[in-house]
């Protein structure tokens, strides 16, 4: 009966015809989705690089190279060095400084070295984990935001239905279709964010474990060096 009801239901038409709150929700979700994908790719690149650099450093370190030479190299190219190299550099620098001071016991030297390494480790971990909280937020909240848009759109569709005498499915169908787009967008934003968050937290955990064990092993090596010199 109404010619407007048989209009086209294309994606853009539906979005443009949606009510303002639903459109705002869609805009918000689009922004969240864009940002989360952006962070996903940033994290992907930086984590890949961190893994690669850490692998090569470990290979070099356990390959039996000269620690002094390694320190020189890492200090020279600090900008491009990886997380573990930073820890190594901080620890070794602190160790050398403490060793130059007279009458310091072995425990004090090793503890100072470990504290320096731990501080750098925390900073590196913090940098690795940046943006991850945003992914977690998008992953948990955007389905609700999309649901809100859908509920609002369906409410409006049914309100329009109350003013007509004969209710047909064709009168609510476009409203419900446009409302459901909001849920679809929310899920589209949430699913990659959740997957990315889980995956990156796992990767970062493994990297952190490697860094921690390196710290312990490096402390042992330094301790051995000190005791062997002292003897």
């Amino acid at each position: 009966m109404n010619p407007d009801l048989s209009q086209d239901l294309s994606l853009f038409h539906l979005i443009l015809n949606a009510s303002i709150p639903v459109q705002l929700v869609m805009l918000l979700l689009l922004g969240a989705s864009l940002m989360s994908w952006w962070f996903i790719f940033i994290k992907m690149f930086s984590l890949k690089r961190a893994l690669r650099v850490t692998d090569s450093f470990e290979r070099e370190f356990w390959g039996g190279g000269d620690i002094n030479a390694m320190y020189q190299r890492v200090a020279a190219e600090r900008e491009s060095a990886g997380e573990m190299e930073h820890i190594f550099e901080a620890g070794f620098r602190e160790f050398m400084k403490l060793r130059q001071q007279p009458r310091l016991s072995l425990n004090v030297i090793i503890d100072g070295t470990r504290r320096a390494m731990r501080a750098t480790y925390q900073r590196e971990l913090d940098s690795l984990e940046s943006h991850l909280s945003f992914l977690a937020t998008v992953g948990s909240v955007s389905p609700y935001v999309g649901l809100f848009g859908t509920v609002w759109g369906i409410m409006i569709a049914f309100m329009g239905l109350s003013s007509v005498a004969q209710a047909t499915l064709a009168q609510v169908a476009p409203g419900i279709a446009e409302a459901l787009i909001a849920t679809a967008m929310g899920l589209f934003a949430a699913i990659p964010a959740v997957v990315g968050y889980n995956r990156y937290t796992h990767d970062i955990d493994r990297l952190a474990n490697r860094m921690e064990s390196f710290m312990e092993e490096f402390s042992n090596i330094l301790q051995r060096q000190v005791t062997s010199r002292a003897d």
Partner: protein
Amino acid sequence: MSFPADARFVSRPAPTFVAGAMALGVHALFVLLLVFGVSWQTEHPAPVMVDLWETLPPVTPPSVERTPRPRPEPVKPAPEREPVVKAPAPPPKPPDIALEKKKAEAAHLKKLQAIQAAEEKARAEAARTVREKQLAEQKKRALLRQMEEEDLMQRVTSEAAANEARQLKLSEAQAAASKRQAEVASVVGQYRDQISTKVRGNTRLPDNLKGNPEVRCLVKLLPTGEVQSVRVTQSSGNAAYDEAVVRAIEKSSPLPLPVERDARAAFVPELSFVHRPK
């Protein structure tokens, strides 16, 4: 006291531009997938206009016309070749031998005659083809004109038919409307009778009633037929009787009402009710 310069924390610049471009790419891909992957109900099949042709001659005449055209072309070169044939003919004259000369002349004559005959034939043929062409064109023009006329006639007749149909529809609609009104009126009358019989059955006539007095009441009804209020608009002169009628109407709630919307309008929300005891 000054703190020793420790190595400062180095924040590595992440490849943000590449990541941003990739994020945009993912969204563009998803939108493309949605637009082209899902068959949205974008267009309703548009009404198709169909021209119905009773005769299909306009297609055939051009083909008829086109076939004769190539024919004159191979014929025409023949006359052009005549002078070329004639020119080499004179040289045989110089030889002294008369017989040969005669023979040659006879042959030449024959040849000439043959050529002339061929020429005439070709000319006749060309003329014929031209005539045929003209004829075909005339035929075609006549056909076209005829078709145009037919078209016009058809259009005129179809318009007239459409007009007639429209008028017929209008009159039909009017007839339907009046019929419907009659139906509604009959339904209303039926229910009025039902209501008055129900009320009459509930009326307890007072003893002092004389004759067949008429009471007019205004009854307010709910859509369900329940009586909301009754008011006497024109008394019968006998107060006891008026009261009895009012009570009877209240007692017969809910009143029977027609289901149809149009017929119902005569009863809801107000019904002027006329009651006589007999």
